[in-house]
């Protein structure tokens, strides 16, 4: 019987495992593109940086990256919290504390995503 947990990310540990890897790869691609641009652009100033981030391709990549960050951090932090903030290590209060921390984490992730989309398309 599968063990389900409402605060995990996907429907199963296997799907979480795959999402964790795919999101890691997407983040790596984004970071390599940005690092490569920063190193290869002779004149990094507002105009060139703004021009780069106005392109549709880079915006889509950025949105993919922040969505990957959201899934990746959700799964990763879930793993850490369910390892340490447990009844065995902390006593009966642990479950409530962990749910509280997980909700806080989800709120932060939500802000990251909305903020990034607003940076790219807002104003």
């Amino acid at each position, binding site marked *: 019987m599968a063990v389900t947990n409402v605060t995990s990310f996907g429907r199963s540990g296997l799907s979480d495992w795959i999402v964790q*890897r795919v999101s*890691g*790869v997407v*983040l*790596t691609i984004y*970071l390599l593109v940005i690092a490569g641009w920063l*190193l290869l652009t002779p004149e990094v*100033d*507002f105009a060139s*940086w*703004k021009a780069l*981030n106005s392109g549709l391709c880079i915006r889509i990549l950025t949105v993919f990256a*922040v969505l990957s*960050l959201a899934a990746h*951090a959700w799964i*990763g*932090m879930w793993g*850490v919290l369910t390892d340490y903030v447990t009844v065995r290590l902390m006593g009966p209060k642990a479950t409530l504390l962990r749910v509280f921390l997980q909700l806080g*984490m989800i709120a*932060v992730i939500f802000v*990251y995503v909305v*903020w*990034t989309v607003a*940076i*790219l398309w807002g*104003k």
Partner: protein
Amino acid sequence: MNDKRPVNLDIGTIQLPITAYVSILHRVSGVALFVISGLFIWMLDCSLASDESFTALQGILTHPLVKLVLWGMLAALAYHLVAGIRHMFMDFGVGETLEGGILGAKLVLVIAAILIAFAGAWVWL
């Protein structure tokens, strides 16, 4: 009870293998990145909002203490990324033996150290 029986829970005498350090550092850097991501998004915001905010951010980034923080942020990212890639190699069964694990852990430390040194040069030069 015999008080003289040997107990080895003295943390100072327990030697962790290199693979354990590489593993826990991946976890620590991952948690750190959760917070650091907010700072990176803030920098993205400043750098794209306007010409003035871009210049203001550039100004902030000249402060020596800020440079140190930025280097720390990049170091966490570089380490987590390299260790994460090793993780995926091991998921595919590469480097899962005892020797392979130790070699992989050493490679992670060496490659991450090179990247972190490089990031330091980029921040300060």
